[in-house]
């Protein structure tokens, strides 16, 4: 009787220790798959927007993603919470990946909108989805303004204000 | 008999699916465009029936062309190194040695008269864009004078044949802008200049015979705008023979094992056929005992 319960206890303890080892190795393996620190901390992209032409899409690259920077013409209306005022001009600054499945929409200058070739999604100039499968507007990258220079990857007050607006809406 | 019926059903299902995802889908995704036109019949500014005078052509070329263009084979070397030429003009001006051989006569005459229309780049060089093609239009020349220049250029073009011609034509027609990495060929115009000049870096052509295929290249090179509206690649005006040489070269570099593949394919299929027949006979023998 004594003997058996002790064997039961030792068996359970052995099982528990083996399980701990198994879980610990799984955690290690999961972490091996994590993005490397160099990848996580990699790069802030800076763009000088002073030289940009209106209604001509500029594509910057930030963390391997295309970032659309579009300077508005006089007759294009800025959208509260999505358009960024830099100097005297309004700009759209957004990640140029369709929110459906990540293709890069093309800018149609004559219609002031974006069209995605993959599944037909359309976005207006400020990045709001207006047709097709995209479930939400184009994402906004974290940015900071430094005069006429845009720093992608840092959260500046303008970005936080825009996020607060998006969260509140 | 029943087995043949089953085979027929499977073949039908696979056939319909194949038709849908290959020929039909490609037909929908890549609609047919007008076939290649190697007479460039929309270009009519110059009467190309006029017989050109080589002697007079030489005089005109010396006065008008060699300030920018080399004609190496006729003894006019390049005015400056490629990098400097690209910096001055945006792109390296072509050596005209083989122009008479590779460019269509009608195209060449009309090109001299008005390059932008001939290249089909009216969309890029609009007055609003403020851009200007580096070579001026020689529309002040008389048709006779233009045909004299054409006749002279044709007279100095060296005759080349075979694989040597394939490479020479490719280099003359494409090599100022495009790399052919798998043949060790780099565009003669430096990359930075090209990017400014074309708006984008022209692609490396090493695998274009595979990615675009002969059929697409055949119409595309003849008139890029027809298949890729808005592209900054000009219509280069190659004769059909010259264009075939270019495509042949792309195949020699991009699909160099084609001949080996096709001949080996026949042998392997012959072997497999023998294998299949013997397998059938063996199966018949074995199954005769159990049926």
């Amino acid at each position, binding site marked *: 009787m004594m003997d058996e319960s002790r064997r039961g206890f030792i068996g359970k303890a052995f099982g528990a220790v083996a399980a701990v080892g198994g879980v610990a190795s799984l955690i290690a393996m999961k972490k091996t798959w994590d993005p490397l620190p160099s990848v996580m901390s990699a790069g802030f992209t800076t763009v000088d927007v002073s030289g940009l032409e209106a209604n001509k899409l500029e594509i910057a690259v930030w963390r391997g993603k295309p970032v659309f920077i579009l300077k508005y013409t006089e007759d294009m209306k800025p959208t509260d919470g999505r358009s960024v005022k830099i100097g005297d001009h309004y700009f759209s600054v957004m990640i140029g990946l369709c929110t459906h499945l990540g293709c890069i929409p093309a800018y149609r200058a004559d219609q002031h909108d974006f069209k995605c070739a993959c599944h037909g999604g359309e976005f207006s100039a400020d990045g709001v989805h207006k047709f097709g499968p995209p479930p939400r507007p184009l994402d906004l990258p974290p940015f900071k303004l430094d005069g006429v220079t845009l720093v992608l990857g840092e959260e500046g007050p303008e970005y936080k204000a825009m996020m607060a607006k998006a969260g509140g809406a | 008999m029943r087995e043949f019926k089953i085979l027929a059903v499977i073949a039908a299902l696979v056939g319909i699916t194949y038709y849908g995802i290959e020929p039909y889908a490609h037909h929908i995704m890549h609609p047919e465009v007008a076939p290649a036109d190697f007479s460039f019949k929309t270009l009519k500014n110059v009467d190309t029936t006029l017989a050109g005078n080589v002697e007079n052509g030489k005089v005109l070329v010396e006065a008008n062309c060699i300030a920018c263009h080399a004609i190496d084979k006729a003894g006019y070397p390049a005015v400056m190194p490629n990098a400097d030429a690209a910096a001055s003009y945006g792109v390296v001006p072509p050596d005209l040695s083989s122009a008479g051989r590779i460019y269509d006569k009608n195209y060449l005459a009309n090109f001299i008269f008005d390059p932008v229309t001939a290249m089909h780049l009216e969309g890029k060089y609009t007055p609003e864009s403020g851009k200007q093609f580096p070579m001026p239009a020689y529309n002040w020349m008389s048709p006779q004078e233009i045909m004299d220049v054409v006749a002279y250029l044709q007279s100095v073009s060296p005759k080349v044949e075979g694989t040597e011609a394939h490479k020479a034509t490719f280099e003359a027609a494409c090599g100022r802008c495009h790399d052919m990495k798998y043949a060790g060929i780099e565009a003669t115009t430096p990359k930075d200049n090209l990017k400014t000049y074309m708006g984008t870096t022209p692609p490396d052509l090493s695998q274009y015979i595979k990615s675009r295929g002969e059929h697409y290249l055949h119409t595309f090179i003849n008139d890029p705008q027809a298949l890729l509206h808005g592209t900054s690649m000009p219509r280069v005006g190659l004769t059909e023979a010259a264009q075939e040489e270019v495509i042949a070269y792309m195949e020699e570099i991009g699909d160099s094992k084609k001949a080996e593949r096709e001949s080996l394919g026949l042998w392997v*299929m012959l072997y497999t056929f023998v294998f299949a027949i013997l397998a059938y006979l063996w199966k018949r023998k074995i199954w005769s005992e159990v049926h």
Partner: protein
Amino acid sequence: MAEFKKADSMLEWFDQRLGVVNFAKVMMTEYWIPKNINFLWAMGVLLTVMFTFLVVSGIFLLMYYKPDVNMAFDSVNYTIMQEVAYGWLFRHIHAVGASVVFLVIYIHMFTGIYYGSYKKGREMIWISGMLLFVLFSAEGFSGYMLPWGQMSYWAAYVITEIFGGIPFIGDELVVWIRGNFYVSDSTLTRFFMLHVLLIPLAILGAIVFHFYALRFPHVNNEKGEFFDFDEEAEKYLAGNKKESKVVPFWPVFLSKDFFVLGFFMLFFFYLVFFHYNFAMDPVNFDKADGLKTPAHIYPEWYFLWSYEVLRGFFFEIAGVSGKDLGLIAFGIANAIFFVMPWLDRSPMVKPANQRPYFKYWFWFLMVDLIVLTVYGKLPPTGANAWVGFASSMTFLVLFAALPFITKAEAKKVGGK
């Protein structure tokens, strides 16, 4: 250790040590297969041969392939395709073989569904087979990334992005799978590892399991007939070969397989040498460029039907976004075949055409899968989007209706 007698022959020497005589009996000469079968029963052996072709060609490709975003494309398209002697042949066999293996898998799978070979004791054969299907899919997907062409890149991008739809952890999961914010070098190297080691190991294990699962319930036959295999085997061994309902795996069953294999290989090599564009998409001969989307993005043909189920739902229904609906439908489509044995409530094991209701269901499913496959490739614009939606819905409805259809059928035929 037991005492060993001196062996009189090489065979005896090995038999003493490895029991090869008995092993050969169990695995080959006395492994019994029903006699009333047709060429569809050869698909298993065809798949084994195809898998061998893939492994062997893969080994040679592995000698020259470089899993690095800067070198992968040229190592495949220049080094392997143009420099290595017969490198092009191995690549063609590998690429075309990967495509054709799915054709045979689908034939194998729908043969199983048609003849009811997943029922009454054969559930584990079916499940292990579906497991192989999933593993082959993962193997195909990870391998397609390796040449690092435009289609490699964008298919990888779009498919990994799908995981972003999983609630709460989605976005982080995508980054974790890729090892970066986008498909990059770390993605390529980890998928390389999966493709050449982990998944092939799992496939080998699953193949052994699949074969093992066949031993107890035995292979089904053309009529769905049940009989006593031991009794029939005795008849065969006693010399009543013509009367017996079974034949041994070797040489009788395999002789038929080799005959089917011979003609299949003729078809296969025709594709390898002369008609390979369907498996080696021209777009993939453009080097991957994360900042340039190809005009049309589509997966390989064997994923098209489930891809179409994914994108068939392109609008919001009852407050659930099209993207989420598509993801749910996609999840169902990939899992539903596993539970076939339990969705089919009729105990009848017969070829579909002898089942009064099931036959309609089967052919309806075939048509629907073909429609899904074709529309999965076409651009999803205008009417195409609605055809995609209708056929995706049809797919779900077919499986939702299966238990009721088969229950009604069981009632009609009185449980026979």
